């Protein structure tokens, strides 16, 4: 049995936990944290598979760019959550329905 299978299994477990958090929670920041677990799982799977490829540097480049983009999306999401909290005094995503447009 290849050890990469273990890495991919761990990635799948982390992804499942992230999906559970995204579905079961309704606080915006908690959902963001759950999405970050998903990101961690995805990068782990990417790196594990890149280690088996013929050019691991390509996987490394993709992982680096993905990490940078993830940092950017955290900034946006936290800013939106902060604005929503200032406007509504709560961060329940169901409250966003009233803020359409």
């Amino acid at each position, binding site marked *: 049995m290849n050890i*990469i299978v273990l890495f991919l299994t761990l990635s799948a477990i982390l992804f499942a936990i992230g999906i559970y958090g995204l579905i079961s929670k309704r*606080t915006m*920041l908690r959902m963001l944290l759950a999405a970050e677990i998903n990101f*961690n799982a995805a990068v782990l799977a990417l790196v594990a598979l890149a280690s088996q490829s013929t050019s691991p540097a390509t996987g490394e480049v993709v992982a680096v760019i993905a990490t940078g983009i993830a940092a950017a999306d*955290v*900034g946006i999401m936290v800013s939106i959550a902060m604005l929503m909290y200032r406007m509504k005094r709560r961060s329940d995503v169901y409250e966003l329905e009233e803020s359409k447009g």
Partner: protein
Amino acid sequence: MIALDIALTLNAGTVLFFILAAAAVISAILVVEHKSLTYSAVFLAILGMANATLFVLLGFTFIAIFFISVYIGAAVTFILFSVTMFEEAPKVETPVRIVALVSVILVAALLAIGFSLNIGSEIPFTSPSYMELANLLTQKYGLALIIASLTLITTLIEAITIARKEETK
């Protein structure tokens, strides 16, 4: 190709993997289920650290460094500080302090044992060279790098604009 076809015998590398996997899974569960958002953000940082160590185990040292400096150092810390603005910082009670102290001692002992075993030499890996990485980043994936950089800049401006928006009355 990175050779990782090692048998699943209980060598030090495999033991380290299982310890890190357990830490990652427990941290992920606590990120979702912990009552305090502040602690959840801290557990996300621990999850990131476990992930970075797993990258080192696979031979990708550069990604591990980048992950710790950019993702944990910037993104998770940003979440942590923002979360403390939403809710009051949770009180640290004495039992928690004792648990934290015991955890620190256990982790220090574990790391000392791990390093003394010289784990890195047991897993055969060949990390891609930095020159190859730099060439790929600047030549083949140059456009992707430029787009990522522009995304980061626009995100920064957007985040400041959104956060400074006045309350609508």
